[in-house]
């Protein structure tokens, strides 16, 4: 068994009288790709927001590599090695690929006071990363994000997570609004991330996409995890759909 990377114990989240999460337990191991499935309102997004620091849990604990941590902000999560990639990639479309990759952690050349960006280093690393995530087209790192396709944007976001040595990459509906070829591209990026030792939590409405890349499927219903060890190799899409909708009981 590989290293236990993330452990959520009895994590809950309430919005006033509404319990969005009711005592969830989840484990993610190093190098594992976990598919998180559930119908609308099942609690997937809330769980991910808690884990990515976007909202604070009402109760429970989160441990990273065996240490209990506080998740008060997205920067806390990034500092603990958790990177979240949203549907819209959370990139700045006006900035170049290289500047997005290093946003918030820009390498400085010369005096720190002058704060001059080390653009040569940024461009070299960006070119290398784009190849690593599998972008085959020759795209200069100075290209603005606005000139990229949806799939390429997701690739840049994944490249950023990989470069900054994130242990866990959370992909929240990364294939929404993408064409067939672009979706396959994003799925390949996930496989590449796993191959380089990163763990992933993959959330998608399209179960077929999830089945193609994950090692294990976790299903949520009404703010709780109802199945957490489904092997996609030994089960069917229909069986998982029955669990999601509650038709299995």
């Amino acid at each position, binding site marked *: 068994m590989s290293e236990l990377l993330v452990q959520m114990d009895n994590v809950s989240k309430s919005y006033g009288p509404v319990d969005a999460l009711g005592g969830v337990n989840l484990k993610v191991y190093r190098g594992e790709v976990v598919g998180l499935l559930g119908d609308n309102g099942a609690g997937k997004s809330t769980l991910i927001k808690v884990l990515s620091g976007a909202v604070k849990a009402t109760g429970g604990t989160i441990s990273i590599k065996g240490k209990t941590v506080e998740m008060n902000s997205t920067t806390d999560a990034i500092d603990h090695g958790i990177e979240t990639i949203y549907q819209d990639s959370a990139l700045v479309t006006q900035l170049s690929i290289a500047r997005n990759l290093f946003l918030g952690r820009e390498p400085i050349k010369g005096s720190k006071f002058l704060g*001059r960006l080390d653009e040569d280093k940024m461009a070299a690393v960006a070119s290398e990363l784009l190849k690593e995530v599998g972008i085959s087209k020759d795209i200069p790192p100075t290209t603005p994000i606005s000139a990229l396709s949806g799939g390429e944007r997701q690739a840049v976001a994944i490249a950023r997570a990989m470069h900054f040595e994130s242990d866990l990459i959370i992909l929240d509906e990364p294939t929404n609004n993408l064409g067939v070829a672009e979706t396959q591209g994003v799925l390949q990026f996930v496989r590449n991330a796993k191959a380089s030792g990163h763990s992933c939590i993959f959330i998608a409405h399209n179960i077929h996409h999830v089945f193609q890349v994950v090692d294990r499927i976790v299903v949520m219903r009404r703010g709780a995890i109802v199945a957490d060890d489904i092997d996609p190799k030994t089960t069917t899409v229909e069986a998982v759909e029955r669990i999601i909708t509650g038709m299995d009981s």
Partner: protein
Amino acid sequence: MGKLSKLLSVRPEVGPAILLVLLIVVFTSINPKFLSILNISNTLAFTVELGLIALAMTLLMTSGEFDLSVGSLFGLTPVIMWALFNGTDIPLELAFLCAIAIAVFIGLVNGWFVTYLKIPSFLVTLGMLLVARGTALYITDGFPQRTWNASGEWLSGFLVGDIQIGALRLYMSLFWFILVAVLLHYTLQKTKMGNWIQASGGNADAARARGVRVDATKIKLFVLSSALAGFAGVISSIRTSAANPNSGTGYELEVIAMVVIGGTALMGGRGTIVGTVIGIFILRLMRNGIVMIGVPGLAYNIFIGAIILGMMALHSWLDRRNQSRG
């Protein structure tokens, strides 16, 4: 056509640069005195004072915010400086520092309202416009301040002294303008701060999620905007020997027009100091040129409005073209 539109997309200042050259050619061909040394000298003196405000506004607008109080600070800051100098025993240097410190404080207040109270900068600075203008009128009873005893002060020479190169008379304010333009261009294009400014205006949530201190960045830019507006007002008051509490009225819109014409995005995320410098000269040369070729000066706003609309249409078309290729 394809190459030109690509160039215009990558370098938003190219479109305004073409327009500037066209204006110079048209005005000079109708009235050759347009490029006379005397006319250049006169145009430069006032242009760079307004230009200082436009340079700071470029960075602020790139971060996605506006400052409508700059015209009022242009009037208030010199009024405070001269009221202190004339009404107390403090030296001009100290009065200058006090006045700039008050401008900085007003910038901090603007920034705090926008970032911590989450009130749109349009409304905050509109309120501050009235507060600053009202203060200038109240403390002067609406009368201009005495400035003529500044001639013996080294500070006035340092800020607005002039040098004569042949028939060309250049003011120190041109030096300040060039210095600030170079510094802000460097900051916006080459530094970490510049990256944060563009990210704050392009996608503030994404920037915050990466650890960019969006609020602190914006507050610094509000301070810069107020400080440079006050500095420009002081320079103007010494050059014209008049600290009028009403001076700078309406400058805020002219400055925003300069910035937008230069290619800085109205909604933030993209800015160019080079474009703003071109935008500054387009507006000032238009004002000067249409009078010199015999068009009534009252028609000035028609041309400016048309140029703003034309430039916005060009940048919008380029943006859409760029997006649809993605």
